[in-house]
């Protein structure tokens, strides 16, 4: 019983939030890693792409809400998501045509493209702030919980409650669907395979008649979709605020690098590694340990390794450790 209670507490405060957060990071990191694999630069504007896609979704959600469209127990934002994706796709394709294409044709060094993406980051950040403002926005509706703590207690008779927010469940399900679709696309379709081929060996891909501009366009479309989904899920789960997406850049990059830049499977693994470390290191273990350890050993303090304010430090430390001991990431990435 003690053990079960401890496990439920652990699930409630660590496992469930970390799985949800990990899914969001994984989606973000997938976008970064795809850009790196195909366009070969680290895209600093990715966080703001997420913000942009999420913003369009928020605006469409509001419009739907105001004319009385709803999705029953599910958040209306899911209905608005395709519009958000379309908006983000238009945005990145336009950016690519107006900005990145020039440097691609000139075969500029990757670091120049990184600086260019900094400029794009500024502009997108500005656009989002101009349109929706810098403040926190509320757009979640529908059922708040999938399982309420009290219901869980009544159901199981345990002392500890387990609450699963519906946004957490939606996050995991949506992310799983998105990832499954992505991998099906990359591994089973001709276009997807041509993307992998281009990422693997650009010259040979050209020799094989693969059209680089098409590969790049498809990549941007997928990246915009992934970014929007990640941004909306994060916004539903926490809240929508333009600046937080910029801050997500660090854990997202950490996830992508930890997994091995350019490797999609690695990006997913990296997302969960970073999310679990962040949550576990900043969680106060007193409660769980109180259940698990014999009474004599019960900890007096909170048993919190670091305060939650240092969660960025955690992703950073993991990043450094991986870079020092395994520079290509957990899964072999493209970066040497």
């Amino acid at each position, binding site marked *: 019983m003690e053990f079960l209670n401890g496990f439920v507490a652990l699930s409630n405060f660590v496992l469930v939030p970390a799985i949800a957060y990990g899914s969001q990071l994984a989606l973000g990191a997938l976008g970064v890693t795809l850009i790196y694999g195909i366009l070969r630069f680290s895209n600093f504007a990715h966080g703001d792409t997420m913000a942009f896609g999420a913003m369009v979704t928020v605006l469409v959600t509001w419009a739907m809400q105001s004319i009385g469209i709803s999705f029953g127990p599910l958040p209306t934002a899911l209905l608005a998501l395709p519009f958000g994706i379309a908006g983000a796709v238009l945005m990145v394709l336009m950016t690519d045509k107006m900005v990145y294409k020039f440097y691609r044709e000139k075969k500029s060094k990757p670091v120049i493209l990184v*600086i260019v993406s900094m400029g794009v980051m*500024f502009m997108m*950040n*500005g656009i989002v702030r101009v349109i929706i*403002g810098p403040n926190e926005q509320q757009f979640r509706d529908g059922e708040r919980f999938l399982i309420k703590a009290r219901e869980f207690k009544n159901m199981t008779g345990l002392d500890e409650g387990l609450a699963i927010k519906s946004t957490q469940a939606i996050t995991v399900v949506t992310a799983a669907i998105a990832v499954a679709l992505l991998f099906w696309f990359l591994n089973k379709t001709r276009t997807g395979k041509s993307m992998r081929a281009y990422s693997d060996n650009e010259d040979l891909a050209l020799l094989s008649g693969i059209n680089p501009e098409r590969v790049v366009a498809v990549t941007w479309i997928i990246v915009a979709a992934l970014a929007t989904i990640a941004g909306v899920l994060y916004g539903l789960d926490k809240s929508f605020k333009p600046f937080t997406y910029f801050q997500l850049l660090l854990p997202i990059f950490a996830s992508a690098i930890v997994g091995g830049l350019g490797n999609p499977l690695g990006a997913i693994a990296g997302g969960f590694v970073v999310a679990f470390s962040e949550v576990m290191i900043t969680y106060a273990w007193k409660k769980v340990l109180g259940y698990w350890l014999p009474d004599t050993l019960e900890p007096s303090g909170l048993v919190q390794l670091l305060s939650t304010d240092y969660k960025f430090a955690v992703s*950073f430390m993991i990043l*450094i450790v991986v870079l020092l001991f395994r520079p290509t990431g957990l899964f072999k990435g493209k970066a040497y």
Partner: protein
Amino acid sequence: MERTKNIGLFAIVAGLIILTGMIQSWNSALLIVNMGLISAIMALGVNLQWGFAGLFNVGVMGFVALGGLATVLVSSDPVSEAWAAGGLGLIAALVVGILVIVATGITIKKLPAGKMRLIGATAVLVGGFFLYRAVFDPAVAAIEAINPALQGNIGGLGLPILLAWPIGGVLAAGAAWIIGKTALGLRSDYLAIATLGIAEIIIAVMKNEDWLARGVKNVIGLDRPVAREVDLQQSAEFVDKATQWGFDPVTASSLYVKFSYSLLFTAVLVVLLVMAQLSLNSPWGRMMRAIRDNEVAAEAMGKNVTRRHLQIFILGSAICGIAGAMMTTLDGQLTPGTYQPLRYTFLIWVMVIVGGSGNNFGAVLGGFLIWFLWVQVEPLGQWIMTIVTSGMAEDSALRLHLLDSVAHMRLFTMGLILLLVLRFSPRGLIPEK
């Protein structure tokens, strides 16, 4: 020809600032000059790293903030009660922390590679961490309990604030040394992410470690290297002089103080600029650029590339630290909550790229120009928006929203400027020779 063009560019920026003085107020103009000087110094530091050596540092904010921290640690008065309550514990914790790191290092060296090493090192690190926290936490609690409304921190050394400028540089250099040691061997994108991360961590530490510099409770009323307005207004001699020149004493005192800062900052900028120019044209500077242009060849010629990179990374970061200390001095307060990467890291990058990477004068010009635009985009946008929306109804929601959104136009504008320069004049306004 080229010289005339460069002088012309500087003259244009100077003209813009003078125009600000005539149209808006001389106070605003001097404010732009002062922050422009500080920006120019930061740009000089980043240019050293990027322009000379091709190092991609996006952690400028962290070094700037460390400089700010230095002003508090140097100039504010020591809180002796705090030292009595927790000073010993704090120092002990520091020693424990260093010992733990050393012990971890030894474990990694001594144990054979593989699982054993990983487990051993992790055990030492985790065990050491708890030991450190056991010493550290009570000391911090004791310090933060001392007069929390005003202090609750260890205070500083009570030295003149001017000393904080070089010390801010030293602090930043120390941090740069640690980062450089770990991250400089990595690819440029990794260095970028590493510096981005360390900057966030430095800010997090400054926000949360209240015992150090009061965290988000801020430290206000810092010491000043120049006169205070209030004192000036009470000095009969100053008031006389002011009225003689046709100023009212309040404006005059404010201008006088700002101008004093301008002189101080100019002195620092000139010294750093001369040093940067000398080093650029020295054998050391030429070698740096040779390494930047072809790392492999330089390495083959027996140059220790990583070591050179470490040198210049530390130097550039130190300059950012100095500028950070100067900025906090100018503000008169340390507010860790206001450090934002877009403003303190990426804006500096815009300055360097627009000014001309690899050219010290370019960096200085970029610093002034971009700072001027950063400040003036808002009123300019307001003015344009008012004209654009003049046809709309007074209370139209769109009009109000547009007028409201002008405040955020500056980010957009900075991005646009950066992209335009990168596209049409990729070497900047004053290109590298």
